């Protein structure tokens, strides 16, 4: 008698075998396959022990409370771009450039450099703050783009100007993250950079279908979500770095 392969047993267990009736007949007749089927079922029954934290009846309302402001935000974000944020970003970006220049100078010319005045934990914190802000600014630009209003022709000149500014900064952070071996941050920044370049190099006025294509690209890659995840991780690391550095302790 030809025994059932493990794949056939798995499909039979889930009721997906091509000839389910024949599979079951074989199991009734074959003790060896039955024992194998029971072992498989036993292992899979253990998987059912994997607990899911319970959520109460109010969970849906809690989700809504957290979600509602973000839904409004997707509609209004284009009006919330503020000067203080842009200014803090510019300061952070300038600091990063200085730090990198200092690092390169110190490494190749062995001269006292600007970085020597700043401890490693502080440098790390500045970088993390700068990358966090960069991701935030990029997210805002992409959200504006995703929510750009419908029309015959859509003017993207404002978003393109931002994309051009962001792409230069992005390049610095991507290289820094890659150099530091932070593949997750470097990967997201790499994808973001390609998208920013694409946006920056398009004509200022695009048709609705072209805009739809850009929006689909943003959504298909899940880029906004991944940026949000990486951004929150960077913020957490920045908090941890602040906590661990002597200057950060209060």
């Amino acid at each position, binding site marked *: 008698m030809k025994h059932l392969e*493990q*794949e056939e047993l*798995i*499909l039979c267990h*889930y009721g*997906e075998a091509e000839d389910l009736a024949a599979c079951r007949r074989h199991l009734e007749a074959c003790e060896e396959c039955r024992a194998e089927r029971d*072992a*498989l079922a*036993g*292992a*899979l029954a*253990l*998987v059912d*022990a*994997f*607990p*899911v*934290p*319970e*959520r109460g009846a109010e*969970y*849906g*309302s809690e*989700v*809504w409370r*957290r*979600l*509602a402001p*973000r*839904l409004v935000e*997707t509609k209004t974000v284009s009006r919330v771009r503020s000067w203080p944020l842009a200014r803090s970003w510019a300061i952070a970006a300038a600091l990063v450039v200085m730090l990198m220049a200092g690092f390169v100078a110190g490494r190749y010319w062995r001269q006292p450099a600007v970085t020597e005045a700043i401890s490693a934990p502080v440098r790390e914190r500045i970088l993390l703050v700068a990358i966090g802000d960069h991701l935030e600014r990029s997210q805002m630009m992409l959200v504006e783009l*995703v929510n750009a209003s419908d029309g015959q022709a859509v003017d993207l000149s404002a978003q393109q100007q931002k994309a051009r500014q962001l792409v230069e900064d992005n390049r610095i952070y991507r290289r820094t993250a890659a150099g530091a071996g932070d*593949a*997750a941050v470097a*990967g*997201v920044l790499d994808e973001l950079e390609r998208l920013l370049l694409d946006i920056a190099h398009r004509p200022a006025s695009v048709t609705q279908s072209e805009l739809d294509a850009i929006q689909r690209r943003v*959504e298909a*890659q*899940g880029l906004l*979500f*991944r940026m*949000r*995840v*990486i951004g929150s991780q960077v913020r957490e690391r920045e908090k941890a770095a602040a906590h661990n550095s002597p200057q950060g302790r209060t």
Partner: protein
Amino acid sequence: MDRMEAEDADVVARARDGDMEAFRALVERHSRGLFHLAYRLTGNEQDAEDVVQETFIRAYRRLDRYESRAGFGTWLHRITVNCAIDLTRSRGRHTPPRVPAFEEHPDHTEQLPAHGPSPETVVYSSEVRRKVGDALDRLTSSERTAFVLRHFEEKSIEEIRTALGLSENAAKQCIFRAVRKLRRALGPAMSPAR
């Protein structure tokens, strides 16, 4: 179309017309189910919360593209799967799951009878849960997703194939690999020490 989907149809139509209260009703109705799915896919409570939020944000933005023949719940499940995959890819790996110890799990503590399980049984149950969590965490993103959809969500191979954008054979192979890995990892857990 089941009863929940039939009830959804009218509410979805109102949400598509811009009725925020209707969208709120959909969020409240589907959140718990999506959280269960997201937690099984990510193995991490905070990640699961993030995935649920992101699912509804994407759904809200794409409401005009939703085609009612799919069933709103099914459509949300697909978005959740994609969000969870995006999350795990962005990290390059699964975050190690934090499997609650037996004593911490509210479901179990509430159900403990006056004469509860023996200490050996409690330790064994806790150990099994830890092993299952570790074993699930060692699966690749596509193996875990395919397995969760088949085993916990009882989706057909065809539905899994569609959700993951794979061929039928590739979807089956993901499930086979997942089951083989889980059996190898859980084999020693199947005989409790007495």
